[in-house]
Protein backbone atom coordinates (compact mmCIF):
# COMPACT_ATOMS: atom_id res chain seq x y z
CA UNK A 1 0.00 0.00 0.00
CA UNK A 2 1.36 3.43 -0.92
CA UNK A 3 2.78 5.43 1.97
CA UNK A 4 0.25 8.27 1.86
CA UNK A 5 -2.66 5.81 1.65
CA UNK A 6 -1.32 4.00 4.72
CA UNK A 7 -1.07 7.29 6.65
CA UNK A 8 -4.55 8.39 5.56
CA UNK A 9 -6.08 5.02 6.49
CA UNK A 10 -4.47 5.15 9.95
CA UNK A 11 -5.70 8.70 10.56
CA UNK A 12 -9.20 7.88 9.35
CA UNK A 13 -9.34 4.80 11.59
CA UNK A 14 -8.43 6.94 14.61
CA UNK A 15 -11.00 9.54 13.57
CA UNK A 16 -13.68 6.86 13.15
CA UNK A 17 -12.97 5.52 16.64
CA UNK A 18 -13.09 8.97 18.23
CA UNK A 19 -16.32 9.85 16.41
CA UNK A 20 -17.91 6.52 17.38
CA UNK A 21 -17.00 6.98 21.05
CA UNK A 22 -18.25 10.59 20.99
CA UNK A 23 -21.47 9.57 19.25
CA UNK A 24 -22.20 6.75 21.71
CA UNK A 25 -21.29 8.90 24.71
CA UNK A 26 -24.11 11.34 23.99
CA UNK A 27 -27.52 10.63 25.58
CA UNK A 28 -29.83 8.42 23.52
CA UNK A 29 -32.17 10.99 22.00
CA UNK A 30 -29.71 13.81 21.70
CA UNK A 31 -29.31 14.93 18.13
CA UNK A 32 -26.09 16.61 16.99
CA UNK A 33 -26.24 20.32 17.84
CA UNK A 34 -25.42 21.71 14.40
CA UNK A 35 -26.15 25.26 15.56
CA UNK A 36 -23.47 25.01 18.26
CA UNK A 37 -20.96 23.57 15.79
CA UNK A 38 -21.45 26.40 13.30
CA UNK A 39 -20.65 29.06 15.87
CA UNK A 40 -17.30 27.45 16.78
CA UNK A 41 -14.78 29.09 17.40
CA UNK A 42 -16.37 32.54 17.15
CA UNK A 43 -18.72 32.01 20.07
CA UNK A 44 -15.90 30.76 22.27
CA UNK A 45 -13.62 33.63 21.20
CA UNK A 46 -16.41 36.09 21.96
CA UNK A 47 -17.00 34.62 25.43
CA UNK A 48 -13.26 34.68 26.17
CA UNK A 49 -12.84 38.28 25.04
CA UNK A 50 -15.92 39.32 26.99
CA UNK A 51 -14.57 37.72 30.19
CA UNK A 52 -11.19 39.33 29.58
CA UNK A 53 -12.74 42.73 28.96
CA UNK A 54 -14.85 42.57 32.12
CA UNK A 55 -11.89 41.48 34.28
CA UNK A 56 -10.38 44.96 34.58
CA UNK A 57 -8.49 47.71 32.71
CA UNK A 58 -5.56 45.45 31.71
CA UNK A 59 -7.90 42.68 30.63
CA UNK A 60 -9.96 45.15 28.67
CA UNK A 61 -6.88 46.51 26.88
CA UNK A 62 -5.72 42.96 26.12
CA UNK A 63 -9.17 41.98 24.85
CA UNK A 64 -9.26 45.04 22.58
CA UNK A 65 -5.78 44.23 21.23
CA UNK A 66 -6.71 40.61 20.52
CA UNK A 67 -9.97 41.75 18.91
CA UNK A 68 -8.14 44.19 16.62
CA UNK A 69 -5.44 41.64 15.72
CA UNK A 70 -7.94 38.87 14.91
CA UNK A 71 -9.99 41.12 12.65
CA UNK A 72 -7.01 42.57 10.78
CA UNK A 73 -5.50 39.15 9.90
CA UNK A 74 -7.23 38.71 6.51
CA UNK A 75 -6.37 42.30 5.50
CA UNK A 76 -2.73 41.78 6.56
CA UNK A 77 -2.59 38.68 4.37
CA UNK A 78 -3.90 40.74 1.43
CA UNK A 79 -1.17 43.35 1.98
CA UNK A 80 1.42 40.56 2.05
CA UNK A 81 0.08 39.13 -1.20
CA UNK A 82 0.17 42.56 -2.88
CA UNK A 83 3.78 43.09 -1.72
CA UNK A 84 4.76 39.71 -3.18
CA UNK A 85 2.78 40.50 -6.37
CA UNK A 86 0.73 37.34 -5.88
CA UNK A 87 -2.70 38.92 -5.35
CA UNK A 88 -5.60 37.68 -7.46
CA UNK A 89 -9.20 38.74 -8.07
CA UNK A 90 -10.50 36.44 -5.31
CA UNK A 91 -8.38 38.29 -2.72
CA UNK A 92 -10.96 41.09 -2.81
CA UNK A 93 -12.83 38.89 -0.32
CA UNK A 94 -10.09 39.39 2.30
CA UNK A 95 -11.11 42.95 3.30
CA UNK A 96 -14.71 41.72 3.42
CA UNK A 97 -13.59 38.89 5.71
CA UNK A 98 -11.85 41.39 8.00
CA UNK A 99 -14.97 43.58 8.24
CA UNK A 100 -17.13 40.51 8.82
CA UNK A 101 -14.80 39.18 11.54
CA UNK A 102 -14.92 42.51 13.39
CA UNK A 103 -18.71 42.57 13.14
CA UNK A 104 -19.25 38.93 14.13
CA UNK A 105 -16.73 39.00 16.99
CA UNK A 106 -18.32 42.20 18.32
CA UNK A 107 -21.72 40.52 18.37
CA UNK A 108 -20.27 37.38 19.98
CA UNK A 109 -18.69 39.55 22.69
CA UNK A 110 -22.03 41.31 23.19
CA UNK A 111 -24.60 38.53 22.52
CA UNK A 112 -27.49 40.79 23.57
CA UNK A 113 -26.89 42.70 20.32
CA UNK A 114 -27.53 39.48 18.36
CA UNK A 115 -31.05 39.56 19.68
CA UNK A 116 -31.48 43.20 18.63
CA UNK A 117 -29.77 42.83 15.24
CA UNK A 118 -31.23 39.54 14.05
CA UNK A 119 -34.37 38.82 16.07
CA UNK A 120 -35.85 42.18 17.04
CA UNK A 121 -39.31 41.01 15.93
CA UNK A 122 -39.17 37.56 17.54
CA UNK A 123 -41.45 36.65 20.46
CA UNK A 124 -38.65 35.03 22.49
CA UNK A 125 -35.61 36.76 21.04
CA UNK A 126 -33.28 35.71 23.88
CA UNK A 127 -33.90 32.02 23.16
CA UNK A 128 -32.89 32.66 19.56
CA UNK A 129 -29.38 33.85 20.46
CA UNK A 130 -27.70 30.40 19.90
CA UNK A 131 -29.27 30.29 16.44
CA UNK A 132 -28.11 33.83 15.82
CA UNK A 133 -24.55 32.79 16.73
CA UNK A 134 -24.85 29.86 14.31
CA UNK A 135 -26.09 32.20 11.55
CA UNK A 136 -23.14 34.54 12.12
CA UNK A 137 -20.64 31.67 12.18
CA UNK A 138 -22.20 30.19 9.05
CA UNK A 139 -21.82 33.54 7.24
CA UNK A 140 -18.12 33.77 8.10
CA UNK A 141 -17.55 30.16 7.05
CA UNK A 142 -19.39 30.72 3.75
CA UNK A 143 -17.16 33.71 2.89
CA UNK A 144 -14.03 31.84 4.00
CA UNK A 145 -14.91 28.70 2.05
CA UNK A 146 -15.82 30.77 -1.04
CA UNK A 147 -12.45 32.50 -0.85
CA UNK A 148 -10.55 29.21 -0.47
CA UNK A 149 -12.47 27.56 -3.32
CA UNK A 150 -11.95 30.54 -5.67
CA UNK A 151 -8.26 30.61 -4.78
CA UNK A 152 -7.96 26.86 -5.37
CA UNK A 153 -9.70 27.19 -8.76
CA UNK A 154 -7.29 29.93 -9.82
CA UNK A 155 -4.29 27.97 -8.56
CA UNK A 156 -5.27 24.85 -10.48
CA UNK A 157 -4.44 26.54 -13.77
CA UNK A 158 -0.79 27.16 -14.41
CA UNK A 159 0.35 24.70 -11.74
CA UNK A 160 2.81 21.97 -12.51
CA UNK A 161 1.19 18.50 -12.70
CA UNK A 162 3.05 17.42 -9.54
CA UNK A 163 1.74 20.40 -7.54
CA UNK A 164 -1.76 19.76 -8.88
CA UNK A 165 -1.54 16.11 -7.81
CA UNK A 166 -0.40 17.17 -4.32
CA UNK A 167 -3.41 19.52 -4.06
CA UNK A 168 -5.71 16.73 -5.26
CA UNK A 169 -4.35 14.35 -2.60
CA UNK A 170 -4.94 16.92 0.15
CA UNK A 171 -8.49 17.64 -1.02
CA UNK A 172 -9.29 13.93 -1.30
CA UNK A 173 -7.94 13.32 2.21
CA UNK A 174 -10.01 16.22 3.62
CA UNK A 175 -13.10 14.88 1.83
CA UNK A 176 -12.47 11.43 3.34
CA UNK A 177 -12.18 12.98 6.83
CA UNK A 178 -15.54 14.75 6.38
CA UNK A 179 -17.19 11.53 5.15
CA UNK A 180 -15.83 9.48 8.08
CA UNK A 181 -17.27 12.09 10.46
CA UNK A 182 -20.57 11.84 8.61
CA UNK A 183 -20.66 8.04 8.99
CA UNK A 184 -19.31 7.55 12.50
CA UNK A 185 -20.69 10.59 14.25
CA UNK A 186 -23.69 12.04 12.41
CA UNK A 187 -24.77 8.62 11.09
CA UNK A 188 -24.39 6.84 14.43
CA UNK A 189 -26.14 9.72 16.25
CA UNK A 190 -28.98 9.49 13.75
CA UNK A 191 -29.23 5.74 14.35
CA UNK A 192 -29.17 6.19 18.14
CA UNK A 193 -31.84 8.89 17.87
CA UNK A 194 -34.02 6.60 15.72
CA UNK A 195 -33.72 3.79 18.33
CA UNK A 196 -34.60 6.27 21.07
CA UNK A 197 -37.63 7.58 19.13
CA UNK A 198 -38.98 4.06 18.51
CA UNK A 199 -38.44 3.12 22.15
CA UNK A 200 -40.18 6.28 23.44
CA UNK A 201 -43.11 5.86 21.07
CA UNK A 202 -43.66 2.18 21.95
CA UNK A 203 -42.59 1.85 25.58
CA UNK A 204 -45.98 1.63 27.23
CA UNK A 205 -47.75 -1.12 25.28
CA UNK A 206 -45.18 -3.90 25.85
CA UNK A 207 -44.38 -4.16 22.16
CA UNK A 208 -41.56 -6.42 20.95
CA UNK A 209 -39.09 -4.00 19.44
CA UNK A 210 -36.13 -6.29 18.65
CA UNK A 211 -37.07 -6.82 14.95
CA UNK A 212 -37.50 -3.03 14.60
CA UNK A 213 -34.09 -2.42 16.20
CA UNK A 214 -32.48 -4.99 13.87
CA UNK A 215 -34.04 -3.37 10.83
CA UNK A 216 -33.03 0.08 12.03
CA UNK A 217 -29.46 -1.19 12.27
CA UNK A 218 -29.60 -2.76 8.80
CA UNK A 219 -31.16 0.48 7.51
CA UNK A 220 -28.30 2.44 9.09
CA UNK A 221 -25.77 0.20 7.28
CA UNK A 222 -27.61 0.49 3.95
CA UNK A 223 -27.88 4.28 4.27
CA UNK A 224 -24.19 4.64 5.09
CA UNK A 225 -23.06 2.31 2.30
CA UNK A 226 -22.80 5.00 -0.44
CA UNK A 227 -20.78 7.20 1.93
CA UNK A 228 -18.49 4.29 2.86
CA UNK A 229 -17.90 3.54 -0.82
CA UNK A 230 -17.24 7.21 -1.57
CA UNK A 231 -14.67 7.23 1.29
CA UNK A 232 -12.96 4.14 -0.16
CA UNK A 233 -12.90 5.78 -3.59
CA UNK A 234 -11.31 8.95 -2.18
CA UNK A 235 -8.66 6.91 -0.33
CA UNK A 236 -7.85 4.90 -3.44
CA UNK A 237 -7.80 8.10 -5.50
CA UNK A 238 -5.02 9.46 -3.25
CA UNK A 239 -3.08 6.30 -4.08
CA UNK A 240 -3.71 6.89 -7.79
CA UNK A 241 -2.51 10.50 -7.52
CA UNK A 242 0.65 9.33 -5.74
CA UNK A 243 1.28 6.63 -8.38
CA UNK A 244 0.79 9.11 -11.24
CA UNK A 245 3.15 11.57 -9.56
CA UNK A 246 5.83 8.85 -9.20
CA UNK A 247 5.52 7.58 -12.77
CA UNK A 248 2.55 8.56 -14.89
CA UNK A 249 3.28 5.79 -17.39
CA UNK A 250 4.10 3.14 -14.84
CA UNK A 251 2.40 -0.10 -13.94
CA UNK A 252 1.46 1.22 -10.48
CA UNK A 253 -0.63 4.06 -11.98
CA UNK A 254 -2.42 1.67 -14.30
CA UNK A 255 -3.16 -0.80 -11.48
CA UNK A 256 -4.39 2.03 -9.24
CA UNK A 257 -6.76 3.31 -11.95
CA UNK A 258 -8.08 -0.21 -12.55
CA UNK A 259 -8.55 -0.75 -8.80
CA UNK A 260 -10.47 2.54 -8.55
CA UNK A 261 -12.78 1.70 -11.44
CA UNK A 262 -13.37 -1.77 -9.95
CA UNK A 263 -14.29 -0.25 -6.58
CA UNK A 264 -16.61 2.25 -8.24
CA UNK A 265 -18.31 -0.46 -10.29
CA UNK A 266 -18.73 -2.81 -7.29
CA UNK A 267 -19.88 0.12 -5.17
CA UNK A 268 -22.68 1.04 -7.57
CA UNK A 269 -23.81 -2.62 -7.71
CA UNK A 270 -23.64 -2.97 -3.91
CA UNK A 271 -25.60 0.27 -3.34
CA UNK A 272 -28.52 -0.58 -5.63
CA UNK A 273 -28.60 -4.23 -4.49
CA UNK A 274 -28.54 -3.27 -0.79
CA UNK A 275 -31.30 -0.66 -1.21
CA UNK A 276 -33.46 -3.07 -3.20
CA UNK A 277 -32.83 -5.95 -0.75
CA UNK A 278 -33.58 -3.80 2.27
CA UNK A 279 -36.83 -2.48 0.82
CA UNK A 280 -37.93 -6.06 0.02
CA UNK A 281 -37.00 -7.31 3.50
CA UNK A 282 -38.89 -4.45 5.14
CA UNK A 283 -41.95 -5.26 3.06
CA UNK A 284 -41.67 -8.94 3.99
CA UNK A 285 -41.30 -8.27 7.71
CA UNK A 286 -43.45 -5.12 7.88
CA UNK A 287 -45.95 -6.92 10.11
CA UNK A 288 -43.40 -7.08 12.93
CA UNK A 289 -41.89 -3.64 12.47
CA UNK A 290 -42.85 -0.50 14.37
CA UNK A 291 -40.84 1.77 12.06
CA UNK A 292 -39.85 1.42 8.41
CA UNK A 293 -38.17 3.61 5.87
CA UNK A 294 -38.38 2.87 2.16
CA UNK A 295 -36.04 4.54 -0.28
CA UNK A 296 -35.02 4.41 -3.93
CA UNK A 297 -31.48 5.26 -4.84
CA UNK A 298 -30.06 6.18 -8.17
CA UNK A 299 -26.34 6.56 -7.42
CA UNK A 300 -25.79 8.85 -10.40
CA UNK A 301 -22.70 10.45 -8.89
CA UNK A 302 -21.10 7.07 -8.23
CA UNK A 303 -21.98 5.85 -11.76
CA UNK A 304 -20.42 8.93 -13.36
CA UNK A 305 -17.33 8.63 -11.13
CA UNK A 306 -16.97 4.96 -12.09
CA UNK A 307 -17.20 5.80 -15.81
CA UNK A 308 -14.60 8.54 -15.36
CA UNK A 309 -12.28 6.09 -13.57
CA UNK A 310 -12.70 3.45 -16.30
CA UNK A 311 -11.90 6.10 -18.93
CA UNK A 312 -8.92 7.29 -16.91
CA UNK A 313 -7.68 3.72 -16.64
CA UNK A 314 -7.90 3.31 -20.43
CA UNK A 315 -6.07 6.59 -21.03
CA UNK A 316 -3.32 5.65 -18.59
CA UNK A 317 -3.01 2.24 -20.25
CA UNK A 318 -2.78 3.80 -23.74
CA UNK A 319 -0.32 6.44 -22.53
CA UNK A 320 1.87 3.74 -20.97
CA UNK A 321 1.88 1.77 -24.20
CA UNK A 322 2.71 4.84 -26.29
CA UNK A 323 5.42 5.81 -23.84
CA UNK A 324 6.99 2.35 -24.01
CA UNK A 325 6.87 2.46 -27.82
CA UNK A 326 8.36 5.92 -27.80
CA UNK A 327 11.19 4.67 -25.60
CA UNK A 328 11.97 2.13 -28.33
CA UNK A 329 12.54 4.95 -30.84
CA UNK A 330 16.26 5.67 -30.68
Amino acid at each position, binding site marked *: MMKSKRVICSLLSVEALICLVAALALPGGAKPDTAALLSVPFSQAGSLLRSLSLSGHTGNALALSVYLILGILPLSYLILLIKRKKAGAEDILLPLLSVLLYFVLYLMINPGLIRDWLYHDAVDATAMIPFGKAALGDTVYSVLISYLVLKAMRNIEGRSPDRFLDMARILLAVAAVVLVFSIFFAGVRGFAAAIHDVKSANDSDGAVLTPTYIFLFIGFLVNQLPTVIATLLFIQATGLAEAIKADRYGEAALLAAERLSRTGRNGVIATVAATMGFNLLQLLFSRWLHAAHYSTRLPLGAIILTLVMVLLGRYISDSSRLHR*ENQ*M*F*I
Partner: protein
Amino acid sequence: MAIKVHLDEVLKKRHMTSKELCSLINITEANLSILRSGKARGVRFSTLNKICYYLKCDVGDILKFDGELGDESDE
Protein backbone atom coordinates in the same frame (compact mmCIF):
# COMPACT_ATOMS: atom_id res chain seq x y z
CA MET B 1 12.38 -7.32 -39.29
CA ALA B 2 12.82 -6.37 -42.98
CA ILE B 3 15.16 -3.47 -42.24
CA LYS B 4 18.53 -4.72 -40.98
CA VAL B 5 20.91 -2.61 -38.93
CA HIS B 6 24.58 -2.89 -39.97
CA LEU B 7 25.98 -0.51 -37.40
CA ASP B 8 28.52 -3.00 -36.01
CA GLU B 9 30.14 -3.39 -39.43
CA VAL B 10 30.44 0.35 -39.94
CA LEU B 11 31.87 0.80 -36.43
CA LYS B 12 34.47 -1.87 -37.18
CA LYS B 13 35.43 -0.22 -40.49
CA ARG B 14 35.84 3.13 -38.79
CA HIS B 15 37.74 1.58 -35.86
CA MET B 16 35.37 3.11 -33.38
CA THR B 17 33.86 1.50 -30.31
CA SER B 18 30.18 1.75 -29.46
CA LYS B 19 31.10 3.58 -26.27
CA GLU B 20 32.90 6.28 -28.26
CA LEU B 21 29.96 6.61 -30.64
CA CYS B 22 27.54 6.93 -27.71
CA SER B 23 29.48 9.82 -26.23
CA LEU B 24 29.66 11.55 -29.62
CA ILE B 25 25.97 11.26 -30.52
CA ASN B 26 24.78 11.62 -26.92
CA ILE B 27 22.69 8.48 -26.47
CA THR B 28 23.05 5.81 -23.80
CA GLU B 29 24.83 2.54 -24.43
CA ALA B 30 21.60 0.73 -23.63
CA ASN B 31 19.79 2.57 -26.41
CA LEU B 32 22.62 1.97 -28.85
CA SER B 33 22.53 -1.69 -27.93
CA ILE B 34 18.79 -1.74 -28.71
CA LEU B 35 19.55 -0.18 -32.09
CA ARG B 36 22.41 -2.55 -32.91
CA SER B 37 20.37 -5.61 -31.99
CA GLY B 38 17.54 -4.57 -34.33
CA LYS B 39 15.02 -4.37 -31.47
CA ALA B 40 14.38 -0.64 -31.92
CA ARG B 41 10.90 0.33 -33.11
CA GLY B 42 12.36 3.20 -35.08
CA VAL B 43 15.21 5.66 -35.39
CA ARG B 44 14.87 9.41 -35.23
CA PHE B 45 16.26 11.40 -38.13
CA SER B 46 18.35 13.41 -35.69
CA THR B 47 20.00 10.20 -34.39
CA LEU B 48 20.67 8.94 -37.93
CA ASN B 49 22.04 12.36 -38.82
CA LYS B 50 24.57 12.24 -35.98
CA ILE B 51 25.56 8.60 -36.64
CA CYS B 52 26.18 9.28 -40.34
CA TYR B 53 28.12 12.47 -39.51
CA TYR B 54 30.47 10.89 -36.98
CA LEU B 55 30.91 7.59 -38.85
CA LYS B 56 31.26 9.44 -42.16
CA CYS B 57 28.82 7.12 -43.90
CA ASP B 58 25.45 7.10 -45.63
CA VAL B 59 22.11 5.97 -44.23
CA GLY B 60 22.20 3.03 -46.62
CA ASP B 61 25.44 1.84 -45.02
CA ILE B 62 23.68 1.56 -41.65
CA LEU B 63 20.19 0.41 -42.67
CA LYS B 64 19.58 -2.20 -45.39
CA PHE B 65 16.34 -3.59 -46.71
CA ASP B 66 16.42 -7.37 -47.07
CA GLY B 67 13.53 -7.56 -49.56
CA GLU B 68 11.03 -9.10 -47.17
CA LEU B 69 7.83 -7.68 -45.75
CA GLY B 70 8.40 -7.26 -42.04
CA ASP B 71 6.54 -9.46 -39.49
CA GLU B 72 3.62 -7.43 -38.02
CA SER B 73 4.21 -9.03 -34.65
CA ASP B 74 7.24 -6.75 -34.46
CA GLU B 75 4.80 -3.77 -34.16
